[in-house]
């Protein structure tokens, strides 16, 4: 049945430029490209859902087509929404586990040592490969012990004492896997005399959307919008996230893809480097110690889509001693949970191949990127360690080793 919310396909004038810039279409011809999978066939799906092509599942939702589109067609949104509008619900346990990151996280963090140990064992990998179609080549991020929220609770009082505060949405990765990044956010903002109010209800919804759990994603989104808006209203603060994909979801996917009203948080929500950069420009620049490091910066797709890359670059440029190479903007291929699926694994690696080559050519000591899944992909596919820009900044502030 026709639902005509997203009719941006109507603006497509068939110039085909999106297909030129699609990293998946370049890597595999199983995918006919964003124009055909998006606006072209959306007209047909409206006529009859039977005209749905399986091939659109190859879309990684990197949004590079939307950046390229001169007609403002929300191409990736059209393709993503087709996945849940027209396909039958996936009943794969794998997709369920990959999609429900917060559920998995809260279980796994209780026995993180055990989980981290088991998930690396070859028989377990083989089992996952055979029965769950999770490629055995894929490395999983390690789970942390306990949650970031638990750590934060102990420090809440001191954070609330700051005159200026920011509401921080840590996301699943910081909460369950990488507490250190969350602590780095606190270090950096505190050095700028800003307190951190953590507000975290639920997973932002990115993996849920990608796996077709749309109702769940909408529920999460509403909870997040309400809780973030409430926290921000209370302290008159801005909302920040240090995950490019979480911020992208909160700001754009909620609005364009889930078709929810997120105006309560839209204007006050920033990806962290934008927030920091703006304050740097206003003169709130903490004392920075030299880091003496050769680094290569990779810009994640969703940060590109938000137009936030220049903020990260500007912030990094402020760090003394950081010898920075900006890598040509390219998709790393992992696309969240996409690269965890056996059927897409090869495509995922092929998409990233060009980036991996460029990293090797640059031969940095570390790679810097804003996105946790890009980090996993690059660390798995190249010999280089990957850090978040905020982590690098935090080390420049506290003088710690990188």
């Amino acid at each position, binding site marked *: *049945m026709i639902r005509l919310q997203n*009719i941006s396909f109507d603006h497509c004038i*068939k110039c085909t430029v999106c297909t030129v810039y699609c990293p998946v279409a370049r890597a595999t011809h199983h995918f006919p490209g964003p124009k055909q999978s998006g606006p072209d066939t959306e007209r047909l799906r409206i006529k009859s859902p039977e005209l749905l*092509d399986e091939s659109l599942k190859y879309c990684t939702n990197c949004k590079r087509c939307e950046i390229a589109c001169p007609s403002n067609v929300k191409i990736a949104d059209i393709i993503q929404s087709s996945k849940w509008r027209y396909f039958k619900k996936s009943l794969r346990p794998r997709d369920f586990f990959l999609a429900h990151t917060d559920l998995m996280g809260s279980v796994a963090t209780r026995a993180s040592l055990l989980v981290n140990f088991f998930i690396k064992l070859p028989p377990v990998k083989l089992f996952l490969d055979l029965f769950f179609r999770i490629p055995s080549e894929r490395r999983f991020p390690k789970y942390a012990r306990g949650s970031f929220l638990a750590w934060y609770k102990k420090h809440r009082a001191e954070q609330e004492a700051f005159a200026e505060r920011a509401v921080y949405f840590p996301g699943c990765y910081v909460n369950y896997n990488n507490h250190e990044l969350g602590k780095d956010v606190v270090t950096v903002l505190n050095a700028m005399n800003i307190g951190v109010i953590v507000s975290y209800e639920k997973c932002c919804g990115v993996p849920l959307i990608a796996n077709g759990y749309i109702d769940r994603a909408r529920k999460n989104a509403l909870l997040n919008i309400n809780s973030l808006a409430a926290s921000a209203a209370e302290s008159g603060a801005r909302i920040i996230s240090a995950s490019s994909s979480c911020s992208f979801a909160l700001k754009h996917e909620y609005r364009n893809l889930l078709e929810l009203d997120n105006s309560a948080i839209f204007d006050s929500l920033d990806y962290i480097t934008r927030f920091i950069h703006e304050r740097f420009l206003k003169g709130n620049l903490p004392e920075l110690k030299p880091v003496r490091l050769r680094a290569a910066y990779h810009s994640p797709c969703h940060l590109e889509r938000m137009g936030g890359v220049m903020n990260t670059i500007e912030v990094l440029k402020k760090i003394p001693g950081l010898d920075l190479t900006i890598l040509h903007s390219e998709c790393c291929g992992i696309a969240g949970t996409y690269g965890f699926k056996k059927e897409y694994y090869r495509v995922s690696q092929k998409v990233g191949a060009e980036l991996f080559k460029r990293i090797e050519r640059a031969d940095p000591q570390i790679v810097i990127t804003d996105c946790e899944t890009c980090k996993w992909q690059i660390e798995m596919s190249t010999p280089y360690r990957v850090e978040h820009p905020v982590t690098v900044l935090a080390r420049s502030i506290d003088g710690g080793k990188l």
Partner: protein
Amino acid sequence: MRRIETEAIVIGGGATGAGTLRDLSLRGVRAVLIEKSDIASGTTGRNHGLLHSGARYAVNDLESARECISENRILKKIARHCIEDTGGLFVTLPEDDPSYHGKLIEHCRYAGIRCEEIGVREALRMEPNLNPEILSALRVPDGTIDPFRLTSANVLDAQERGASVFTHTEVEEILRDGDRAAGVRCRDRLTGEKIEIYAGIIVNASGVWGQRLSASAGIELRMFPSKGSMLIIDYRINNKVVNRCRVPSDGDIIVPGDTVSLIGTTSKKVDYDRIDEITVDDDEIATLLESGEKLIPSVSRARVLRAYCGVRPLIAVSGEMDGREISRGIVLIDHEKRDAVGGLITIAGGKLMTYRLMAEMAADLACAKLKAGKKCRTHRTPLPGSERRVDQARSVKFFTGIPNSVVGSTLYRHGHRIRNILHREKRNYGLICECEMVTEGEIEYALKKLNVRDIVDLRRRTRIGMGPCQGQLCAYRAAGLFVKYDSATSDESNKMLVDFLEERWKGIKPVLWGDALREVEFGYWIYQGLFGLGDVRFEEEAEKR
């Protein structure tokens, strides 16, 4: 000069002419069809493609309503691949006279049309984009019918049964042999070749153009052309035919036609001398948009792809020429009786819905005069493509490796004949028209089997260039394929590319704003800025003339 002898000549390749050709062929009568342009290029191809249940006519014209519902049932059987059984709604807006609703139910009962009242909420569930303020809704067995496919299928069937077809061939004169019409002299408009064809009976099925034709045989026939204009919306905004429940008026109907929706129609008298140059007026566009928005508000946000118009062929009966006795029904004239000219009959009036019935009537009379031919079988013999119902899911499975969108679109257009078109060789399913999923294989099939002589014809058989871009990428590709498949010389291909783009332009320019204008700027840039097509001089063409 070529000379051909046959049993029957049918003039006019609209639905009626094509239907008559098929009817005669099914009865075993050898027949030739002559069409001055392309099949279904006149009135037939210029309506909104509504498979009437008859409800639209029930209140005013019970006889037409009865014809419609009876033909509706037949067509659903014999032409299923040209038809989508969408169902239709009659909705009453707050500003409409509420009493029409009851009248319609009553008259549908008289005509034998199933017409049931449904709740407003149910109507909105069926058709979510409908104006939520409607007061009431009726459900009727309306559907959609593709006039191009229907006509082409009739022609194809006739050809497979031995009939011959001359498109782009104009009858210059009806040849008389004493008090009889003995044949026609015609000219191929593309090659200039002259052809004389002789037959025992000539059926004039040239619709509104019949007045001119008859005059060449010294017979007076009086047409009262009335223009109807329509708009095409870029995509489907409705799934069922949506009618406004009131006395028929402008902009009352929105029909989902294949991948698009159509808003129709207006009604304006035109001078007979101007029937070949009618265009859609700005006030008609405004009226159609305004009325369309009242039925489905999202009309205002959608891109209008084209505006087009057709001429209704209303004819004066019984020789009276003052126009008082105009018939909206079917008119069959035996010129032997009326004008003392033997060998010639005219079938006119009627509507697309009743083309088969009209063909049956004409063929009955023709056979009576020829003293040949069997009984009519067109009401139970399915058209090519409709022989069997073909299941989409099974076709998709059968053509593994070819995208569903391609298989489904080909199936929708060609029904059971999909197996003559698609096969797994990659060349065959390479996409040429990316908006409407027309493959190289479908184009090859059309070029070889469906009387295609230029890209405009190809469009009517395949939908190439009918999507949002109106032929930007595919027109050039199609021109190239004409050469590749030996259907035209390079020079002819270049020329038909110009003609095609000019033909598309006719329908676009009345609606040139918003995205349509952007699309045109892009297309013009490609074909003039990049290709310099407007600078090509067709010398050979000039020499021929």
